[in-house]
């Protein structure tokens, strides 16, 4: 009896001293959407984030990290519950939320005090402008930029008259507003329903309006529905489409099939960029998960490496919030999206590309780069941020 007790004590002592030797890992709260049809967004971001950690053998920037992933089910209230529990648990570094409405519920708790939130996808306008926060970073983009860039692309492509469509909810209305901000021609707006299945009615209206091109924002399943029906309605042959990458990411492309050929996609990530960091990422991701990464994966990977750069600069000490913040702002990492820096409002400033869906070298459809639309694009809210 006594012996076992002693042994147990010895074990405890050993374990604690080992712990002291090996640094306590930095815990990162990764709140994301894994269930629901939109679950693949979170899955890609999470898998890429994990890949970055694995490549360093359980570390980021040389500092051991522990990734705590939880599914928000695309429900703001659930996201809020998770962040509340994680903050009580003492976690002070967060990322992973895919959707703006979940982010709105999560962001306050995740940035209070010395806590940091680094967005790997959603970048709502209020957080970029007047309500920008010292501890909030968007390593992805500001929500309006992809749509503004789509407007620029449409100008470049010489379209004069366009029909623009989006579901009638906050992000959809923002998308159309963003597009109109830069597009110089004439537009007709059509709002669709959230989670709409059938678009035949809208497509008939498009045909009747006979525009030069169509811009549409329908992420996830609705976007696949739209693209499939756009193709089968025959409009794809006569009226080209310009979309932000959310309406046609790699997975949606795979689900849509051949009818997606010819779609113009505006993205902050050029999957065929020959930058070594990008090529290495795509290779590693494909090897590990047996599928091609999406833009969400690229952003997740960038976010992980950004965090790694800041952890490295501060040796994993999150307690000095000012130091950690400066390290993040420096963004001293090799982004798979090319040149990367933070703007004054701590939102990513990156290049934007026009891609086109066409048969790649292997005969399969891929998003092939056409041109760069803008370099180091700063979002239109940065000026309003007092940081």
């Amino acid at each position, binding site marked *: 009896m006594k012996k076992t007790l002693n042994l147990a004590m010895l074990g405890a002592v050993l374990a604690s001293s080992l712990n002291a030797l090996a640094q306590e890992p930095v815990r990162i709260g990764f709140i994301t959407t894994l269930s629901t049809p939109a679950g693949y967004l979170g899955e890609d971001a999470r898998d890429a984030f994990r890949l970055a950690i694995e490549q360093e053998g359980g570390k980021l920037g040389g500092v051991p990290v522990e990734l705590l992933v939880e599914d928000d089910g695309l429900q703001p*209230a659930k996201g*809020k519950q998770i962040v509340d529990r994680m903050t009580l*648990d003492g976690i002070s570094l967060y990322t992973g939320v895919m959707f703006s*409405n979940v982010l*709105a*519920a999560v962001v306050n708790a995740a940035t209070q005090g010395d806590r940091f939130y680094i967005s790997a996808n959603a970048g709502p306008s209020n957080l970029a402008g007047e309500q920008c926060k010292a501890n909030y970073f968007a390593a992805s983009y500001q929500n309006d930029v992809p749509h503004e860039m789509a407007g620029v692309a449409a100008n470049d492509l010489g379209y004069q008259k366009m029909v623009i469509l989006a579901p009638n909810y906050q992000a959809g*209305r923002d998308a159309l507003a963003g597009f109109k901000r830069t597009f110089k021609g004439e537009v007709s707006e059509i709002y669709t329903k959230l989670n709409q299945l059938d678009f035949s009615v809208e497509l008939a209206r498009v045909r009747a309006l006979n525009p030069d091109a169509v811009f549409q924002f329908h992420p996830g399943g609705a976007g696949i529905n739209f693209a499939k029906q756009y193709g089968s309605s025959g409009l794809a042959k006569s009226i080209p489409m310009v979309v932000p990458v959310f309406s046609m990411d790699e997975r949606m492309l795979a689900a849509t099939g051949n009818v997606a050929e010819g779609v113009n996609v505006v993205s902050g990530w050029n999957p065929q960029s020959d930058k070594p960091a990008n090529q290495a990422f795509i290779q590693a991701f494909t090897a590990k998960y047996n599928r091609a990464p999406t833009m969400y994966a690229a952003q997740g990977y960038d976010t992980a490496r950004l965090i790694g750069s800041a952890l490295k600069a501060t040796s994993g000490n999150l307690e000095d919030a000012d130091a950690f913040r400066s390290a993040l702002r420096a963004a001293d990492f090799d982004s798979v999206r090319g040149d990367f820096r933070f703007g004054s409002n701590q939102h990513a400033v990156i290049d934007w590309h026009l891609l086109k869906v066409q048969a790649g070298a292997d005969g399969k459809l891929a998003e092939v780069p056409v041109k760069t639309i803008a370099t180091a694009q700063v979002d239109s809210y940065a000026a309003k941020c007092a940081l």
Partner: protein
Amino acid sequence: MSRRIIIDLACLATFALLPLLAALLDEPFLVSLFTRLAIYGMAAASLDLLIGYGALVSFGHAAFFGLGGYVVGIVAFHTAQLMPLWGWEGSNSALIVWPLALLCCALLGLVMGYLSLRTSGVQFIMITLAFSQMLYFILGSLSFYGGDDGILLNERNSLPGLDLNDANQFYYLCVALLVGWLLFCRRLVGSRFGFVLRGLKQSERRTVSLGLQPVRYRLTAFVIAGLGAGLAGILWANYALFVSPDMAAWQKSGELMAMVILGGVGTLLGPVLGAAAYLGLEQLLSLWTEHWLLAFGPLLLLVVLFGRQGIYGLLMKGADKPRRARARSALPPLAAQEVRP
């Protein structure tokens, strides 16, 4: 001591001592989890009032949850933005905002109940669903209040003598309101009104032949149950500091219904246990695996197929029928009385 009282006391003790336990285990999250249980428990118990005692299967109960929360959210929005609402500069006092929210819920209950009660059976289930979905879409189209993104609140409402921003104090307030609500519901189902409501479930023809108009009683019950869910919504808005349209979506109504069935229909305390089991399981399983629904589905199924009276029925198994035992002891022997002339 009857089994029923033991269960009551055990639940009460758990709720009362929980913050101590949380402090001992150094798990402050427990308080937050149990606050959520108390709030959902209140909403589920109020739905049980309809389902279990009035045989009114409402598939739109989340409408009240959402509306209660939204009134709090909208008032807070105007107060924080210094933007008067029809000339009223807003208020952060719970004593003003909460009754206002309850009033709105009562009005909604009157209109929704009056129209829905023209139908019965499956049609009632669907028409209540329809009304709550309409509210859901209305809330979602309020782009001024964030549309689908909802409203973030800066602080909890204030109540004299309490600091609601303190997790423990807010928790005890929720528990006290839950206990109060359950006691009220128990009195209600045993009252003259409650007997009419339960009587309607057993024989509507008899009840009409006694000179009672069914709709008046059912509508009253509908409004009262709506107030319960509305209060839960108010507390939720304060707890989460966030309201969004999905508080009123059909999935939320379905969740509440699942809690009632899981806990035991027509038992009032059962649905609170059902809420605890539902949220607890969801929490545990989702920590364990992201494919938690794969396990959650069959678990639900087992309870439905083999645990007919829900959790409360399981706990009461083998115990005396409580109602009769109580009625007997409560009734003093009646003196032999003269038969009416």
